[in-house]
């Protein structure tokens, strides 16, 4: 993996096939959390026959769910409470913004998924090219992914984030040294933590690209 740098008007990072797969997968997972249809499926298949009444009920159910506060803390982090001290204001905000926010976030994730899943033959390198006018949207999508990972990793305070780095360093050392007395390693947590760190590093470089070009693009 190589971080983003400006090449002409585009920001370009490099991800090998395995890294692409991992990032595309988490992109699709976050979109699923937001209620999107699964990415990469059903392109060729016609939609299954549906009863109109079923569709209506599904629509109504979706509406009902969308105005309630999400119970999954990761989704709540993507669509937070806008007024914790005033339930009426919070509910009204959610009712009017939930659908649009989900659509905006899903659209950005979909775009990354398309970029990363493009056919190998249609690209001749590991490059992930983000056009100049999509830098902020891409950075925002990377934030959403990191928010979900952070929620799963239970990162609540700045100290928790520091602690995660320490934890991963220790786990890496333990795995490398093969020391039987080393602390036990929670492999899933370390894997998620390393993905979180890699995306943090990638996003940081993308924002540096934006800041470097902001004089031309932001009026």
């Amino acid at each position, binding site marked *: 993996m190589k971080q983003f740098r400006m090449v002409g008007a585009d920001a370009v990072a490099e991800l090998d096939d395995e890294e692409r797969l991992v990032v595309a997968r988490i992109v699709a997972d976050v979109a699923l959390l937001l209620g999107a249809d699964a990415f990469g499926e059903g392109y060729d298949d016609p939609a299954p026959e549906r009863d109109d009444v079923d569709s209506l009920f599904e629509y109504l159910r979706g509406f009902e769910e969308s105005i309630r506060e999400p119970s999954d803390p990761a989704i709540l982090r993507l669509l937070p409470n806008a007024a914790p001290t005033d339930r009426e204001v919070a509910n009204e905000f959610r009712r009017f*913004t939930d659908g649009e926010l989900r659509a905006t976030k899903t659209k950005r994730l979909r775009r990354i998924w398309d970029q990363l899943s493009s056919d190998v033959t249609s690209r001749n390198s590991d490059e992930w090219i983000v056009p100049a006018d999509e830098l902020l949207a891409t950075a925002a999508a990377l934030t959403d992914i990191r928010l979900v990972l952070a929620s799963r990793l239970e990162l609540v305070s700045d100290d*928790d984030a520091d602690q995660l780095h320490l934890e991963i360093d220790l786990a890496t050392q333990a795995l490398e040294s093969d020391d039987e007395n080393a602390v036990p390693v929670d492999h899933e947590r370390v894997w998620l933590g390393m993905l979180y760190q890699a995306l943090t590093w990638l*996003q940081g470089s993308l924002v*540096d690209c934006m800041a470097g070009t902001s004089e031309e693009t932001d009026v």
Partner: protein
Amino acid sequence: MDTQRDVDYGSSVATRTDDPWVTIVWNDPVNLMNYVTHVFQVHFGFTLEVATKHMREVHENGRSVLSTGPRETMEADVQAMHSYGLWATLQRSGE
């Protein structure tokens, strides 16, 4: 940038009595300092200096008041912050 509005009221965030609502952005362990600064510049039209000042307030004090005004405007600001993954809330000024 779909949510960006062309209203520029960002140069002053002093609370006035005719601005009954405020938008607050809260600290979190995920958002990067350079990203938060950039989002403040793009959405509120702040200079780099003003955006950095607000980012530091969020990071060091846990929160910063980003805008003041009528409720509808604050709702639009909060929605924009949520679209960028920042944790923002609105409340009546002085609460």
